[in-house]
């Protein structure tokens, strides 16, 4: 494992000592990690084998019945499809927007901090107030219709999915912008000056210089957005909420089963499938990274 190797490289200070101090220092972290990460994870797995009651106590052992019920249901297949569609739209959209914003800000000049701060600002904004503002902007009598002269209720029907995707991309792209900016700023000035002397066009510089040098960040950002789309809950729950839309993604199913219908065991199945999806995508990230990313 990579983790174990990491540890081995660090040479701790001094000789091996026999004080109990390090163990004492580690107690709080370990207690809380066990209580609120490992125990609930194991418990989550266990609950999927039982019929639970309204307060989540396991009742009769039912084996794999719940798994079978979920895995063979139409709504599960739809939610997987929805999740992948949603995540790829968010992934591509956020990445493209952040790329444009970061490429606009590659050079640090007087005043560049102002627009950098504006591009990064959505990092600080919570989903609920953004959702509130956006429901007004995209409502029937909202700003968007006032500017475009339409009468569409954007957050419903066919336009719901693209509108929500648009809002989430806007809300999410701040952190991607920051990572890409760090990557682009790593490009040595001399290299750019050489390129200028040779008469390189901006697009050539982008593809031949910026993109390769920032490849670790570019790669990181692509996966960051896909993974955070799997976990993004607040915006979907506030703007959509119901189970029967193209935005009925895994995490919304998890919430609705466990906390609206109090079917905890079914919620746990969705939770485990979600974590499996997240785990698989992180493995893909890890494997692909080794092949394509260029480190200086």
């Amino acid at each position, binding site marked *: 494992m990579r983790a174990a190797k990491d540890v081995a490289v660090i040479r701790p200070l001094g000789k091996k000592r026999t*004080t109990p*101090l390090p163990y004492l220092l580690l107690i709080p972290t370990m207690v809380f990690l066990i209580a609120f990460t490992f*125990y609930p994870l194991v418990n989550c797995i266990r609950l999927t084998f039982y019929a639970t009651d309204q307060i989540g106590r396991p009742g009769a052992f039912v084996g794999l019945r719940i798994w079978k019920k979920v895995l063979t249901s139409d709504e599960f297949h739809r939610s997987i499809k929805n999740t992948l569609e949603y995540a790829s739209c968010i992934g591509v959209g956020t990445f493209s927007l952040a790329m444009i914003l970061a490429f606009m800000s590659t050079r640090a000049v007087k005043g*560049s901090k102002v627009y950098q701060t504006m591009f990064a600002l959505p990092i600080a904004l*919570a989903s609920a107030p953004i959702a509130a503002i956006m*429901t007004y902007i995209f409502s029937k009598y909202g700003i968007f219709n006032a500017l475009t002269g339409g009468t569409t209720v954007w957050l419903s029907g066919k336009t719901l999915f693209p509108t929500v995707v648009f809002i989430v991309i806007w809300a999410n792209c701040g952190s991607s912008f920051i990572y890409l900016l760090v990557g682009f700023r790593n490009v040595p000035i001399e290299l750019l000056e050489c390129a200028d002397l040779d008469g390189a066009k901006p697009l050539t510089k982008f593809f031949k210089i910026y993109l390769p040098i920032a490849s670790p960040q570019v790669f990181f950002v692509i996966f960051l957005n896909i993974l955070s789309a799997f976990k993004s809950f607040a915006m979907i729950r506030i703007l959509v909420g119901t189970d029967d839309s193209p935005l009925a993604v895994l995490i919304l199913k998890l919430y609705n089963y466990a906390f609206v219908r109090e079917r905890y065991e079914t919620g746990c199945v969705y939770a485990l499938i979600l974590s499996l999806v997240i785990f698989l995508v992180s493995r893909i990230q890890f494997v692909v990274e080794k092949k394509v990313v260029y480190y200086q």
Partner: protein
Amino acid sequence: MSKVTIKHSTKIKIGVAIKIIIGLIFISPIFIGLIFSFVPDEELYALPTVRTVVDNLTLRNYAKVFKTLPIFSYIKTSLVMCAIVIVVQITVSSLSAYAFAFFKFRGRNLLFTLVLIAMMVPGQVVTITNFLTIRRLGLLNTYLGLTIISFAGGRSLFMFRQSYMSLPREMKEAATVDGCSDLRYLWQFAIPLSLPSIASISIMLFIGEFNAYLWPLLVSRKPQMYTIQIGMAQMIGSDAIPTYGRMMAVAMLSLIIPIIVFLIGEDYLIAGMTRGAIKG
């Protein structure tokens, strides 16, 4: 020669001006929210024009909001929750990171691997069972219930560990020779020298916790314990006829604190985000 430089610098200035305009358009939803928080609800049931806004500016939405909703109680709950998480998580992580950075002990690699695995478990996945635990312990509608799942944090532990390991090794050796105990070294040198990391962690935790939605939604069931985000979310789609003006007012009240924190701590936040997140 000088002519060229002048031309060049005006070009840059124009570029900056254009980018600032793009930036303003980019964050225009915030300004739209701000402007319409001063327009009465009744005016927003028809397409707005410039006249609608200019003729009707009023503070009525804010007055109504303060009268009908316990906004200050919401904000207080959010702030207390943030404060508890920041103080406890920083204390817990700074101590544990010290063990990993400065000691060799049996089980070290195993424990460190455990922390790494814990960091890989997505929080949403353990939400259901954590909620059941918190409810069984009777911690719904309490600050402890809101915060206890965030007492340990792999990420802050990592940042502390990195910060400690960047301290010169000789310093610790010299201190030990001079009879400085391990705990005293932590308190007098390692922690004060990690202040930039502490600032980064605090700002990241503040923005994350202040803006948290799922967990407070589950734990805060009584309006007295609503955080501002829950109070805000409850307003959206709850009325048959939406009160957009008032919604914008609450949105502004819930955005203002994180925006200020972001503007003050931007550099620390960015340092925290980028440090150690990406190799290379």
